[in-house]
Every structure is written in structure tokens, then in C-alpha cells.
């Protein structure tokens, strides 16, 4: 068998990874259709992509990338340094529609040295530049095809875009002119099935070979028990947290936030909402990261202590607040459980189910909320705690300085230490309720091999996927 059908929960709105936040775009095109200078591997490491190698200047402000030879876009045009400059300039331009413009913030200039080398000049050293360039938002696109990139993406990857039946599927076919090792599969179809019931049925009926991010954890035991299938349990970059509006009464009181942290029973939430899948976390950091420290001990489930803290903070009878829940089931189900747990210590949280658009509008932009549950799926995003205007409105100068130091630090050991310190600070400030690291739950037919177990970024890297006998 040389084709594969992969189901995704969400359909991409369009296929330009450089002008939207939608992860579904990356799921389809990242490394398959589009490639960047660097790229993520399944274990989260950064490896060369279209850049064969690079050199960093002494002061850490100049990066010189050596591009691979013989790389061509799907339309036949060769990929050159001009394309890299075009792509990066486009992404960081004033009127750019790039959803992660911040990735390119420190870049002062992109210079074409020769057709096979590009130089990036930075304002100041940036320890995460190679990491940033691995993102889907930083892939190299071709100027010739930029006009209809959204419906007909032309990249350099191992697969070419073939067809998109909106509302149903996207087909990719193998790019025979690919510069790298030829992938095993000749074609791949992405189908979009967001409904959990339909997802279950589609897998059971063997309509799909792989279901990336299977939406109903409750059904996984059935697949485990079925020899036709394998269940792939990995980790995502998603820290699932009970975000708290730190500027709003009564959450501006540390004791109240601490009380909430003690009111929460993480394991019950993981069991009830995720059917046991997920790793408890005590801070905003992914457990698979080398710099991770387990801080769950800062907030064990202790309703009595929670009640005592509330009384101390002047809320012996508890208080009322809102709990905004976006659509994913970790939020909707988790929210119901949390509301019940909060009720036990006297806090009445009114559940408000919102769609993502409303969530963005009223919670994220409007900061009009008490509590909300959301999984922060960007990799290495602890830096958001240094932004006082970020929706949970945590404003701690100490933390902000720490992050500035981190940004200019390139030594891995030092960076780990700084990151651990950062985890400590927010954990002890009980900025948010830290719940669990979102598991990556995939289901695949038994014969499929080479799929990513974890999700350092949203991607289904087809280059390594194949069928066993």
C-alpha cells in the first residue's frame, strides 16, 4: 500500500501557513509541502531544513545560512536565496498578515550573499532564532505563486498539493523531484472529521488509516483492545491551564489564586475530562522539556486549605465568578469538573460556553472574564508571562527581567537554569491554575509506522511514514 488517509479534526481555512494562526494549516503542509530553513523533528529537536548549515557570528548578531543545492519549487523554479529573503521580508513587513510576527522581531536585515547563502542580521543576540525559524510561520514560499498560495500552495516539500474538496478532504501527491530522500508513500489524503462520534466510526470502519489528535479519549481503550489498531499516546506542547484574570477582583489577591489551586483536583480532571490521558503540571512548562521541574507539590488538592485561604482573604462565604469555556472537550468537560470542585470550597463559577471567535473577542482581547480553561499549544511559550497586557494580566517586573536575560542568553545550561527559575516564580505566584500537559492521542492502523508521537509543533510529517508488511 502506498497511499494513506489521515483524518484531522479541523479543516484548514486556507493553505498559507504564513498568514494564519490555524494549526490545521501546519498539520497539512508543514514539512510536507512547505519547508523552512530549519525544521522540527518529532522529538522536538531542531535540525537543518532548506539550510544545509549555518554560522553564527561571535556577537551572536549575524547568522549566515548555506542553502541546499538542487532544491526546486513544485512549479519547477529553483529555490534560491532570493526566495528566502522574499519569504522572511514578507513575513516581517509592516503590512504582513503573519500571525506570529513576533518570531521575526529582532531581525534587522536579510541579505542575499549569493544564490546559495543568506545572511540574517539581528538587533541583538537571540537564543531562539533557529527555533523560531523552524515554525510553520517561517517557511520559504515562492514569489511567483504567492498570489494564490491560499488555495494552491507551491512549496519545496516532498509532497505536492493536488486537490482540495472543501469541507471534506485535501489530497497530496509525491513530489518526484524532491531534493531529499524519496518518501515511501505516493499519495496522502487528509480528511476532516471534527465530530467525535464520526471520528470513532470512521476509524472503526477503517475509512481512515490515521487519526491525528483523536478527539474522544473515551474511545481509545476500544482501539487499544482491537488488534487492527495502534494507539499513539504522546505529548503536545499544550499546557492546559485554568487561566485567571490576575487584575480582576478577587483574583488580584494571591491567597485567592492559591485557594483555587488547592481546590482543584488535577487527577479527577484528567480522569474525568481526558479519561486518564495527560500529565499533571504545576507550572507553565512541558514535562518532556529538559528544563522541566515538577512543581505540582506547590498545589496539592486540599479543599480545607483552600477554604482557609479564602477566609483569610476575606471571602469566608466564597464568591461568584465566570468560567469561559472554549469548544475543545478538555475545556468543556474539564470546566464542568472544575466548577464542581470550586463549588466545594464555596466559589460559584458560572459556566459560559463560547466559540473560539467569542473567546478571542471577550476573553483574550476584552479581558472580560474571571476564569477560563485553555491549552497553550505554542512551544516554549513561558515568555507570555512577561507580557503584562497578556489576557491573564500577570505583571511581575522580576519575571519580566528574567525573560529579558533569557532572550539574550545562548548557553544551554544557563538557559535551563533561567527557565527553571521562571517556572518557580509563576508557580509560587499561582498566576493560573496549572492542570495538565495535553496528551497527543493518535490512532492508526496497526501497519502504519513513522508517525510523530509527540507534537513539538502541529505537523504530520509524512516523510518518515510508511506501511510495514
Amino acid at each position, binding site marked *: 500500500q502506498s497511499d494513506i488517509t489521515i483524518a484531522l479534526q479541523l479543516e484548514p481555512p486556507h493553505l498559507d501557513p504564513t498568514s494564519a494562526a490555524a494549526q490545521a494549516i501546519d498539520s497539512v503542509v508543514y514539512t510536507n509541502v512547505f519547508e523552512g530553513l530549519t525544521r522540527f523533528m518529532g522529538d522536538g529537536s531542531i535540525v537543518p531544513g532548506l539550510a544545509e548549515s549555518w554560522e553564527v557570528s561571535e556577537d551572536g548578531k549575524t547568522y549566515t545560512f548555506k542553502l541546499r543545492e538542487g532544491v526546486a519549487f513544485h512549479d519547477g523554479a529553483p529555490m534560491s536565496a532570493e526566495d528566502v529573503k522574499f519569504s522572511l521580508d514578507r513575513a516581517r513587513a509592516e503590512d504582513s498578515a503573519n500571525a506570529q510576527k513576533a518570531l521575526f522581531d529582532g531581525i534587522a536585515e536579510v541579505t542575499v550573499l549569493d544564490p546559495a547563502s543568506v545572511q540574517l542580521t539581528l538587533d541583538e543576540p537571540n537564543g531562539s532564532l533557529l527555533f523560531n525559524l523552524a515554525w510553520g510561520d517561517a517557511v520559504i514560499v515562492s514569489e511567483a505563486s504567492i498570489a494564490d498560495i491560499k488555495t494552491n500552495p507551491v512549496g519545496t516539500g516532498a509532497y505536492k498539493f493536488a486537490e482540495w474538496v472543501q469541507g471534506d478532504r485535501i489530497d497530496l501527491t509525491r513530489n518526484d523531484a524532491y531534493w531529499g530522500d524519496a518518501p515511501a508513500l505516493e499519495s496522502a489524503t487528509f480528511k476532516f472529521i471534527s465530530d467525535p*462520534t464520526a471520528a470513532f466510526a470512521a476509524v472503526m470502519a477503517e475509512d481512515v488509516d490515521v487519526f491525528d489528535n483523536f*478527539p474522544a479519549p*473515551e*474511545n481509545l481503550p476500544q482501539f487499544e483492545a482491537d488488534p487492527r489498531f495502534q494507539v499513539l499516546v504522546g505529548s503536545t506542547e499544550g499546557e492546559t491551564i485554568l487561566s485567571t484574570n490576575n487584575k480582576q477582583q478577587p483574583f488580584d489577591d494571591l491567597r485567592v489564586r492559591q485557594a483555587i489551586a488547592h481546590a482543584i483536583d488535577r487527577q479527577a480532571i484528567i480522569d474525568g475530562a481526558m479519561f486518564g490521558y495527560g500529565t499533571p503540571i504545576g507550572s507553565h512548562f512541558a514535562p518532556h522539556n529538559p528544563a522541566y521541574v515538577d512543581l505540582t507539590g506547590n498545589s496539592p488538592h486540599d479543599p480545607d486549605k483552600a477554604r482557609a485561604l479564602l477566609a483569610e482573604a476575606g471571602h469566608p462565604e466564597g464568591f461568584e465568578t465566570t468560567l469561559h469555556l472554549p469548544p475543545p472537550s478538555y475545556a468543556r468537560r474539564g470546566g464542568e469538573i472544575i466548577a*464542581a470542585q470550586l*463549588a466545594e470550597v464555596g466559589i460559584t463559577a458560572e*459556566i459560559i460556553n463560547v466559540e473560539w471567535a467569542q473567546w478571542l473577542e471577550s476573553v483574550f482581547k476584552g479581558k472580560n472574564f474571571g476564569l477560563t480553561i485553555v491549552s497553550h499549544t505554542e512551544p516554549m511559550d513561558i515568555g507570555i508571562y512577561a507580557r503584562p497586557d497578556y489576557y491573564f494580566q500577570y505583571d511581575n517586573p522580576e519575571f519580566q527581567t528574567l525573560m529579558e536575560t533569557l532572550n539574550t542568553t545562548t548557553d544551554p545550561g544557563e538557559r535551563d537554569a533561567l527557565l527553571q527559575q521562571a517556572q518557580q516564580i509563576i508557580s509560587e505566584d499561582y498566576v493560573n491554575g496549572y492542570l495538565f500537559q495535553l496528551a497527543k492521542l493518535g490512532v492508526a492502523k496497526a501497519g502504519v509506522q513513522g508517525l510523530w508521537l509527540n507534537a513539538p509543533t502541529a505537523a504530520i510529517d509524512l516523510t518518515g511514514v510508511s506501511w510495514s508488511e
Partner: protein
Amino acid sequence: MSRGLWIGSLLTALMLGLALLSLVWTPYPYEQLDIPNKLMPPSLTHPLGTDHFGRDILSMIMVGIRTSMGVAIVAVAIGLAFGIPLGLLASQRKGGWIDEVIMRTNDVIFAFPLLAMAILITAVFGPSATNAIVAFGIFNIPVFARVTRGGALSLWEREFIFAARVAGKSRLRISAEHILPNILGILIVQGTIQFALGIQVEAALSFVGLGVQPPTPSLGRMLADAQTLVTIAPHIAIFPGLAIITIVVGLNLMGDGLRDWLDPRLRVVRA
């Protein structure tokens, strides 16, 4: 009273009884989570089993019936409160401009598929039981206006209405004194039908997340929760579904029975 009316009233009374009982007693507190005991099949301790949070399904159904009935009743009440006066007004001057305006407005409301309207309303004001009620209530207005107008129009041609007009009574007064009591029968029948429809609409809206919000259980919400679990624990989908069917069958049987019972043609024969 016919057998259908008996059975219908009995079923309705039973469900209503469960709903009222839930105000003072349920086997377990419906909001009590017991996650270690989730998805238990029916047993002696939990007659209808437990759901994915380990809540007692019987208790939730009892409260759910209450919620669903409450939503449906209020929506019907909205329809009655606005539909009857509008229908009466329209019928008083058949073909007049008031009649035209009312009936054309009704046509427009009618042209919106109920669900599309509910979706629009919830898109604007967010999903909530209140918005579901408003959506279905608005939909009910033309229903009752039409039934009222239809019934009233034929009455206005009846001789006893002429007699009342000869007695100098105003149209308003005649509407209240003669028209309304004589169309009460069809209104009650229509009311039970809309009530039954309301139960179904609430279920449908809550099922797609546009109706009653957690943690309040409603029959539709329970089904929505059950959707992904139906393969591993069918009982959590089956029982709320059966509850909906029982209420609706009960109400429909009652409506049909009442119609036969109130039908003036049959009444004359009985007298």
C-alpha cells in the same frame, strides 16, 4: 375521555411528577461528581447508571425533565402571550391593514427555519437557555396567531357574534367574551402540540450546544454529552432519549385526545 387521552394524561402527569419531585428530592444530588464511578451501567445503587462524571443518571433525568419542560412552557407562554392578541386583532378586521401587516410579518418569521433562527439568535447573544426560549418563543408567535385568527375568523361569521354586535358590544369585548372562550379548545390543543415540539426543540438546540448551558442538566444536553460515549456506555444515551419520547408521546396523545374531546361536533352528539 378516550383511551389515548387517558394514556397521554397519565404519561404527562408521570413526567411532570418526576420533574416536580426533583425540586425536593432526587436519589443523589444531580451535580455530585464521582469520577471513579463513571459510566457505571444500571445497578441497584444507580437504577439508570452513571454518566461520564459519575453523576446519577436518574437524578439528572429528573432535573433534566424539569429544565426541558420549563424551557418549553415558557416558550409556549411567549407564543400565547403575543400570538393570541395578534391573531384576535387580525381577525377583527379581516383584510384590513392591521391584518395584512400582522400576517405578512408572521409569514416572514415562518420563513425562517426554526433552527436557522435559533442559530442566528445564539450567534448574536451567545448560547443560553434564555436565548433558546426566545428563539422558540418567537417561532411560536405566528403559530398561535394563525390558529387564533383562523378560529376567530369563522366565529366572526357566526350568528351569535352578530347577536353580540347587535347588542352593541365592541369588537374588543366580543373578542374577550365570545371569541376567546370558543377558541380556547383549539388553543389548548395547539398549546400541547407546541409544548411537545418545544421539548424536541430544546433537546435539539442543547444537543448542538445552543441551548441550556452546564451545569444545568437538560435532556438534550445529556444526549450531547452522551454522543461520543454511546458506543461504550449506550445507557447514557438511551435513557434521556426515552424520557424525551415519553414526554412527547404523552403530550401528543393528550393533545389529540383533547381535540377529539373538545370538538364541538362530537360535543353535540354527547349532549
